[in-house]
Structure formats: C-alpha cells, structure tokens
C-alpha cells in the first residue's frame, strides 16, 4: 500500500499534516460514504479533508474530492447549509500530527516516522488534552516506541 496523503489541519496559526481521518468516522457512523472518484493510490480514501481547531473545537473547513459524476465535492454538498465550516461533534479519538523531519520513510499508509508527534485527544469534537512525543529517544534505541 502506497504512503497516503494526510489530511490538512490549521492549528495555532500553522498548517500541519494530520494522520487521522475524522470524516471517514462520520461516513462510518452515518452508514454511507458518497461515491468519490478514485484517482491515486496515494489517496485510497479518495478525498483530502481540511480541518481547523478553533476555540478547542475541531472543524471541517473543506474537502478536496470529485464525485463519481465528475463534479467537485464541496462542503455544502456534504453538509447542506454549511459552506465554510462544520463542527465535527461526531468525532472522538486521538488526532496524530507528525512534526519535524521524516526520520524513516515507510511506503505504506501513515507509517513514516518523524522527529516528533503531536497528539490531540478529542471528545465529541472538543479537544480535551494534548501531548507532544519526542521520537528521538526511540530512534536512538533503534525504532519502536509503541
């Protein structure tokens, strides 16, 4: 499986990569995913979501994808009446944000390793905790920090 394009997260004035897919959780909870065009093995989920954390809340602010009929996916088409942002109240889990340089590239999913990982614990769309993990110790010991 090819390395996957991450989601995009705006957080504290920075644009970050996000290795978590809250929109897929939404589709799973709703029991239906709209049919998007498959275009690249680097994007098996067939979309890239743009997210933002404001006031400690997780918002979906855009989706890059194409419907099977060739029309562009918009936020409004997925969440009628919401063109600019959608509060992701359905999402509970840990958001993983790689930071720093790639220390080990893995050509599969989100398996590449970075210097640091920022984790955000989110409950029902609200950020309740954060943790920054420095992976340099694990690297010097030869790998696993799981």
């Amino acid at each position, binding site marked *: 499986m090819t390395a996957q394009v991450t989601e995009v997260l705006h957080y504290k004035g920075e644009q970050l*990569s996000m290795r978590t897919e809250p929109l897929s959780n939404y589709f799973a909870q709703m029991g239906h995913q709209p049919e998007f065009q498959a275009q690249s*093995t680097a994007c098996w989920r067939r979309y890239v979501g743009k997210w933002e954390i*404001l006031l400690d809340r997780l918002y979906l602010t855009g989706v890059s994808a194409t419907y099977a009929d060739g029309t562009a996916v918009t936020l409004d088409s997925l969440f009628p009446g919401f063109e600019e942002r959608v509060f992701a109240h359905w999402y*509970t*889990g840990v958001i993983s944000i790689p930071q720093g340089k790639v220390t080990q590239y893995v050509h599969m999913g989100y398996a590449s390793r970075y210097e640091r990982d920022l984790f955000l*614990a989110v409950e029902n769309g609200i950020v309740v905790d954060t943790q920054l993990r420095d992976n340099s110790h694990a690297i010097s010991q030869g790998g696993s920090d799981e």
Partner: protein
Amino acid sequence: MNDWQLYAAIYLGVGFVVCLVVVAAHLIGRQKKSKFVRDMMNAVNPKREAFLYRMLEDLVVPTLAFFLVWLVWPVVFVLKIRDSLQKRAVAAQAVQAEPEAEPPGFALNDSELLRQVTVDEVERTNLIQDPLEAVPNIPFGHCNARWVLFRESLQANETLWEFESTRSELAGVQAMWGYAVKREGKVDRFMTSGWKLKIGVFE
C-alpha cells in the same frame, strides 16, 4: 554506419516514439484528472501554487523526464505494466465504505440502560451547541439523519431507553452513551451519541 551505430539509432528512434506516446498519454491523463490531483496536492502543500514550483513541475521536471525516458525507454514498459496491475488492485479493493452504524457483535446489557425516555425528550436534550454556529439546530446536529432512521424504526411494541456503558467498540474509550431500543425485554439495537476517552489515552 557500423552495426553499433545502427543499433543505437534504432534504440533512440524507438525511444523517441515511446517518449511521444508517453507525453500524449500524460497530457490526456492530466486533462482527465488534474482537478482532483491539483486540489489534493494544493491542500497538502499550498507552496505548489508558487511560480517557481509551477515552473519546476510544469517545465523542468517534464523536460528532464522526457530525456530520461528517451534514454531508458524499456524501463517505461516495466513501470507501465506495474502501474496497470496496481490500478486493477485498487479497483478490486475500492468497495464503497458502508459499515454498520454499530458493529455487529457488540451488544448492550440491561444493566447499562439508565431510564426509559420519550422521543420528544431525546430531541429536546440533544441539540448541539457551537459558538461558531457550524452545526444545524436539530437533534444530533450533523448526525440527525442517523437519529431520524433510528427514530423511525421504533415499533409500537418497543421502548426507547437512555444508556451509558463503560465498554465500547472503539479503542481508548472509557465510556459511551446514547439511546437503545428494548424489545420483548431485551436490547434490540442502539445508537451511540457520545464518547469519553480514557485518561492516559496517549499511552
């Protein structure tokens, strides 16, 4: 012209034709799928919009690639065959994601039911607040359609219950809550509306 020169000329001649075919295929493919790929890559890296980046991607790299393909064109055939095999694998696995709302096999116990509730009560107490008003003012917000299906599935011989459980189908969850339908004295189905993460969920 000696034999060596003749073979080189044939090799480069065939290579040039292969290059033209590759360029044509690239241009056709680019027309077909450029929007998605462009949007996707721009979303990940906005610097792609910059002039220098565009020059690099639209002119320098294709030119270098052209000459490289010309020189080692047999490799293109190998890569094309591998690419088409991969695309077949993608098509085979690209099944529409339609999982169950609640995974089969996970059942609630009677002891996890808190109290019987009415539809009106549920709808009154599950309006989701957001300071940026990025959620509809309807029960369960963006997940309203799921609730509507659940509500409409209620039969006359069934009752609606509020539940809270310390078990969950999700990893790292300390508790979850929502609504369950009881039928003939047993929990028949349920809909989760919220979760609480375990303390130390990062570890």
